[in-house]
C-alpha cells in the first residue's frame, strides 16, 4: 500500500509518499518509524502522537493499531490539528 504524507509528517519524512507492506496500522507505523527516523517524535510504538492523524483512503480516520489494511489502501498521515 501507499502512505501519503501531508503537513508536518511530510516535512519529517522528506517525501510525499512511500510504498510499504503492512497488514495493520500498528505494523505500518512501526515500519515507518524504522524507515524514517525523523518521524520518530510523531510515532510512539504503534500509535501516532495526538497532533497527528491517520486516514484511510481519504475517508475514515483511524487510530487503532489493529486496524486491518489491504494492499489497495492509501493511508494518509497528516497533522490532526486542522485549524487556522
Amino acid at each position, binding site marked *: 500500500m501507499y502512505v501519503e504524507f501531508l*503537513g*508536518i509528517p511530510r516535512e519529517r519524512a522528506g517525501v510525499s509518499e512511500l510504498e510499504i507492506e503492512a497488514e495493520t496500522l500498528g505494523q505500518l507505523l512501526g515500519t515507518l518509524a524504522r524507515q524514517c527516523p525523523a518521524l520518530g517524535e510523531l510515532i510512539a510504538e504503534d500509535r501516532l502522537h495526538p497532533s497527528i492523524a491517520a486516514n484511510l483512503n481519504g475517508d*475514515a480516520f*483511524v487510530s487503532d493499531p489493529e486496524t486491518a489494511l489491504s494492499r489497495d489502501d492509501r493511508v494518509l498521515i*497528516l497533522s*490532526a*490539528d486542522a485549524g*487556522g
Partner: protein
Amino acid sequence: MPFGYHGCYLRVDVTGGSAERVPLSDAVLRQYIGGSGLGARLLLDEGLRLRSGGGAVADPLSPEAPLVFAFSPLVGSPLTTSAKFAVVSRSPLTGRFNDSLASSGFAIAGKRCGCDALVLVGRAPSLSVLIIDDGEVRLEPAEDVRGATCQAAEEKLRARLGADYRIASIGPAGERAVRYATISHDGRHAGRGGSGAVLGSKNIKAIAVRGSQHCEWAHPRVLTELSRDLSKRSFGPATAKYRELGTATNLLTFNRLGTLPTRNFQSGTFEGAAQISPEQLRVERSRTRASCVACTIGCEHIYSIGKSTGGSIGKSSVRLEYESLFALGSLCGVGDSDAILRASRRCDELGIDTISTGGTIAFAMECVERGLLDEPWLTFGSGDAVLKAIDLIGEREGVGQLLAEGSRRAAETIGRDSLAFAPQVKGLEIPGYEPRALQTMALGFAVGARGADHNRSGAYEVDFSEKVDRRNATLASVCHAIETEDKAALMDSLILCKFLRGVFTDFHAEAAGMLQAVTGWDVTADELRETARRIVATKRQVNLLAGWTAEEDTLPGRFLDAPLSTDPGAVLTRERLQELVAEYHRQRGW
C-alpha cells in the same frame, strides 16, 4: 477586587470625548472572565439599558451602538499568547453578536490604562483619534490620516503622539463602512464581522493607548512556574504545524480530503492547489517567520511578493494564513500565488476581512457566470479580477458598492434565488471548511452566534477524527459541536491562542490553575465549564435582543440536499440539518 483586574471599565462617549469609570463587580468578572465573555456581558447590559430607556435596538452603525474592547486577567502576565484583546459589538454584516480578537501590544497598553474594558458610544463630530493616556481621554483631529492604510495611519500617528503609544486603526474600508472592515494593530486584525466599520461609523480613525497601571498577580511564583511550563510545551510537536509551516499547510490536506472550498463552494478540490500551497511558495519565494507579542509559537509565515529566493524578505511581503489563501485563491479559482499574496496584502492595507472579501467576490463571480451580474471581467480564475474587485470594494466604487455590503446583502439586491449560493450564515461568509464533507462543522456554522466561523466552533476537529463520520452527521455529533463551541468561548475569554489547544492535556483544569494563580479565585474546571456555557448563552441573549429567530440557524440552500460535486457521498439533507440544530437547541436548553 480580584488580582489581575482593575475592577472597572472605561465608558467613552466619543461625541464629546467624555468618559466615566464604571465599576465591575467581582461576580461579573468571575462569571465572564474577560475578552469575548466580558464583552458579551457589557454589550448585553448596554442593549438592555437602551431598551429600558425606550430606545429601539440600535443599528450597529448608529451612534448609540456600543463598541467594546475587552481585555482579560491574563493580559500582561507571562503566560504565552496572552497579549490579546476582543472587540465586541453587533455586526454591521449580520446584525447579530460579533466578537473579533487580535493579538498585539494594544492589549497590554490598553489594560495599563487602568481598566478591564473600553466601551465606546456616540459619534465624533469629525474624523478623530481617540487618545487614552493612562486613563485620561481626549480626541484629536485625524484629517491628516483620512484615507490612509491601516499601517500608514498607525505609523503616522505614532510619529505624532510618541513611540510609547499603541494604536489600533481602521483603513479606508472602515472609513467607508465596508461591512467587513477590520481594526488593525501591528499587522494583526480584529478581523471578522465588521468591527472596523463600527469604529468608522463613530468617526474614529484610530485609538491610541498608553498607560502605567499594572495589576498584581495573586500567586506570582506559581504563575511564573505555570508560564515556564506552558512556554516549554508550546515548542513541542503539538504546535509544530503552526511554527514550521503555518496554517496555510491546511490547503493540501483539505484538497486531498476533498474539503477545500473551490469556486464559491461548487467543488471540494482545486486543480491549482499544489501551485499555491505553502510547500511550493517557499520553494520560489523568500520567507520569514514572526510572532505576536508575548507568543512563543511564532505561527506567522511572511512571504515575499514577486518570486525571489534568498536574501531578506523586503518590504513587499505579506503574512499568509490558510483562510486568506483559500478565500482569495481556490474559492475564486485563482491559481496564481503572486495574485493571492498581492490580494491578501491589499486586504490588510484597506482593512478588510479576507474571508468575507474572498467569499463575496467568489459569489459575484458565480453571479457573472450565471448571467445575474453584468461585470464580464469578474471571472473565476482571474487574479487580476480579484485585485480589481478588492480595490473597488475598498473605494465603494462601481460593483464595489454592492460587494462592500457582503454576499447576503448583495444576493438580496441581485435576487433570482442567488441567496441560495451566497456563501454565508447569518450574513457572515463561510470560512475554508466544506460543510457537506465536514458535517459537525456544518452544524457549528449553522448555530454560531456570529454566523459561520471556525474560530467560534472548532467542530472541524471532531470531523477530522474517528469520533464521527464526517459525511454523515448523527445526533451523536451534537454534543461534540457543543463541547468545541464552549471550549472556544472559554479560550476567547481568558484570552489564550487556540493554537495552544493541542498542548493541554486537560484544558479546563489547566485554565483553572492559571486563573487561580492570577486572580486568587478558588476556581475549578467544572466552574469554567459552566462559565463557558454562560458566555455562549449571553451571546445568544444579545442576538435575541437584536431579533434572532431559530430559522436563522441554518445553511444556504447550496449546501442542503444536493451532493458536493466532487464527493457524491457528501450529502447533508435539509431534514438532517434541522434535526441536528433542534437537538443542539434542546441540549442547550433553549
